[in-house]
């Protein structure tokens, strides 16, 4: 939207406030103004995501809410608000906005992506998958294919996930960032299958489309780390973290530096990751699960992490929420409760190496050595090298309850 348009809108809103009853007339005089404002809000949000900068979220929200005030039936603004809420990991809120948008414009395919995303994070998988199927039937786009791919991955159908992501790549031809994005997601899938060389090619392709694409740099860092080249991994994570203020990149940098014995630097990177999580939260983001998982993986603040995991999982009762809570329970020595939550986290059949490993620890803690061995075997089949460099299994000693 042009600045002039924005000024016109502000004037229109101001005069509307003054004139009261003349509101309808003002609206009629600027057709599409709400749509332009909503579009601008959406563009800002896309920018927030592309730069990984949550500081833009409040502005996005102001613009979209202004559009909605001007035109309460603007499905575009509602879809924007649903997407914004999802970016902030406020999935229940996202679902409310998305359902309102669907009621107004049920024929727009993208709304089913938003509805599916929210349901997925709320653990309502049947609804989520139905929404993705609907989206794909209404308009098969890269966004639809990528969602179907993720759903298949959650269900343990990794080959199917790879197939759908290849379609997403084909549907991204001619647009650089989605080309890089879909290739990066495909590479991550390939990496989960130990198809390292293919993953490497895809990450490099992504970097050809968008130079210094942070997620692809992080992928190459992961490969370097697996190959034992920790210096290179650290350098790549540093570039990824420099390109996007995303806590995971900075945390991974810290972990790599720690492995290299550069503990002071590692500590600094971890503090920075904390800082980025705080920035995300200060701008309306919900990250109880993320910060809990970080602390659990670093053997710190374990009791508070359990508290956050419980609250986070109430907000996000997904397999991911179950996974973090189970891990928190284990770390706090509550292995019995951890087991049932952990089994819930694995209920879709997801081939998540961390989740399977954590479950093996929980079984071990309960003295179920056969089950523990069976889960360790599953881990080994997915990633032969995982156990050699497994996350810390340390836990607080068993407590009552």
């Amino acid at each position: 939207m042009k600045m002039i348009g924005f000024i016109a809108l502000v004037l229109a809103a101001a005069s509307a406030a003054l004139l009261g009853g003349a509101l309808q007339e003002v609206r009629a005089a600027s057709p599409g103004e709400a749509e332009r404002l909503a579009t601008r809000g959406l563009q800002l949000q896309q920018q927030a995501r592309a730069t990984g900068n949550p500081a833009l979220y409040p502005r996005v929200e102001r613009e979209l809410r202004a559009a909605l005030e001007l035109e309460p039936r603007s499905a575009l603004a509602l879809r924007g608000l649903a997407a914004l809420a999802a970016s902030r990991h406020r999935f229940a809120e996202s679902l409310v906005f998305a359902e309102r948008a669907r009621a107004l414009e049920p024929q727009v395919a993208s709304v089913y992506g938003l509805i599916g995303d929210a349901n997925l994070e709320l653990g309502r998988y049947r609804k989520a998958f139905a929404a993705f199927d609907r989206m794909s039937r209404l308009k098969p786009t890269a966004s639809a294919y990528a969602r179907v791919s993720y759903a298949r991955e959650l269900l343990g159908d990794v080959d199917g996930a790879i197939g759908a992501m290849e379609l997403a790549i084909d549907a991204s031809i001619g647009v650089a960032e989605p080309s890089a994005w879909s290739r990066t997601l495909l590479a991550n899938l390939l990496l989960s299958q130990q198809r390292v060389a293919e993953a490497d090619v895809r990450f490099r392709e992504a970097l050809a489309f968008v130079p210094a694409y942070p997620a692809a740099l992080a992928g190459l860092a992961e490969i370097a780390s697996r190959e034992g080249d920790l210096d290179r991994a650290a350098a790549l994570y540093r570039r990824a973290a420099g390109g996007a203020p995303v806590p995971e990149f900075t945390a991974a940098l810290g972990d790599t530096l720690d492995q290299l014995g550069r503990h002071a630097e590692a500590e600094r990177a971890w503090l920075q990751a904390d800082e980025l999580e705080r920035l995300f939260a200060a701008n309306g983001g919900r990250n109880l699960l993320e910060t809990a998982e970080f602390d659990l993986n670093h053997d710190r603040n374990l009791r508070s992490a359990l508290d956050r995991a419980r609250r986070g999982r109430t907000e996000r009762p997904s397999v991911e929420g179950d996974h973090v809570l189970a891990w928190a329970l284990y770390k706090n020595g509550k292995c019995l409760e951890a087991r049932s939550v952990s089994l819930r986290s694995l209920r879709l059949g997801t081939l998540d190496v961390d989740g399977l490993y954590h479950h093996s620890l929980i079984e071990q803690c309960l003295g179920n050595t056969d089950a523990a061995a069976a889960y360790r075997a599953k881990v080994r089949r997915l990633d032969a090298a995982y156990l050699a460099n497994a996350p810390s299994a340390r836990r607080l000693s068993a407590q009552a309850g």
Partner: protein
Amino acid sequence: MKKAALAAAALGAITITALAAAVVGSGPSAGTASSHREAPLIAEDPSADNTDLYAFRSPDKPNTVTIVSNWIPGEDPAAGPNYYTFSPSAKYKINIDRTGDARPDIVYEFRFGRTAGPAFLGNTVQNWSMWRNKKLFARGKTPPNNIGPRSTPNYPSLVSKSIVNKGGLSVFAGQRDDAFFGDIGAIFDLLAFRKGTGANGGGKDFFAGYAVHAIAVQIPIAELKAKNSTIGVWASTERQNVTVNGKLKRGWTQVSRLGNPLVNEVVVPTAAKDQWNRSAPVNDKQYAGPVLTPILAKLMNDLYKVNAPETNRDDLVAVFGTGVKGLNYTGDTVADMLRLNYSIPVTPSEKVNRLGVIGGDNGGFPNGRRLGDDVVDAAERVMAGFLKGNKVELGDGVNAGDVPNLPTFPYEANPASGFANGKGEPRP
């Protein structure tokens, strides 16, 4: 031309997407990956996006009709390493109705292969297969994109080598200069024609130097056998349907279609665009309402006082929906098809009028559409009520494309090379 799509393509890098920041694998900091998988909210799909469609009697072979269909808006020839290609998992279709019922009687379907290496290395040659009414009809290869004199020397010869002649038809698929021209920047700025409502040049051709991917088919008139010698043509693109449960049956969903220029932008409301793109012309009657009372006519009156009729626009329904009686009428089925009465002779080049029929030249738009027809000016004037006697000299000040089209098949000009492109130069 799908202007919205093009504007979106131009915004490109800034309007896009989530960061796929999922940290994978065994690292102790594996995050809650799902949160960084956010898909683009507005998924652009240029390789499936129909931009323009042309149908005309071939000037050098008047016993044939040529259909040119363009995809992929706004290809920057210097966009390497992000080279453009047809999508290897889409179906590209040219549909011809010969009876006026808005159902396809002849369908040419194209599928494209993968490039031999990663496209970003510049290998853009694709094998193609063409089916005629579901029967395999021909195979060929696209030329490479015009990357530059070192990568793709003698470009015109690469093009002529890639034309396939089979069963009386000539077929070409590959990169071309975008034949569309118009001052889209100004049109989007509240229809701000740079020189008022005149048509005396001074506009800026937003499309100069940009390329598209085209499929061109030259068909003997003897093969068309259409009622009243008038065919209805539209192009479409389909993508594979997938389901989360991969075992469930897949189908195809049409994701884009195009008949007449500007209909998608002007007639179809944003909320209905997905629906429009997957629907068939035979069901277009549902969109006739907005055509009868076009919001654009009101907007033009508000802005420029051109006195355009705002209601009862049966003239617009005729131009875009049924054909014009005495010219290219195909019956009362309202459908967005480009209608060509091929019994109307080719207009000799010195008598061609860029405004087509409203310029007294029945060999052009809306009787089919030639590559050089100025559909923006023609549509603006028709919108202002030309056919209802309100003749206003509207125009966007861009009266021709930036490069001349070719005298022979595939007619649409060679794309500017990435090496020597001059896109975006202001026109005199």
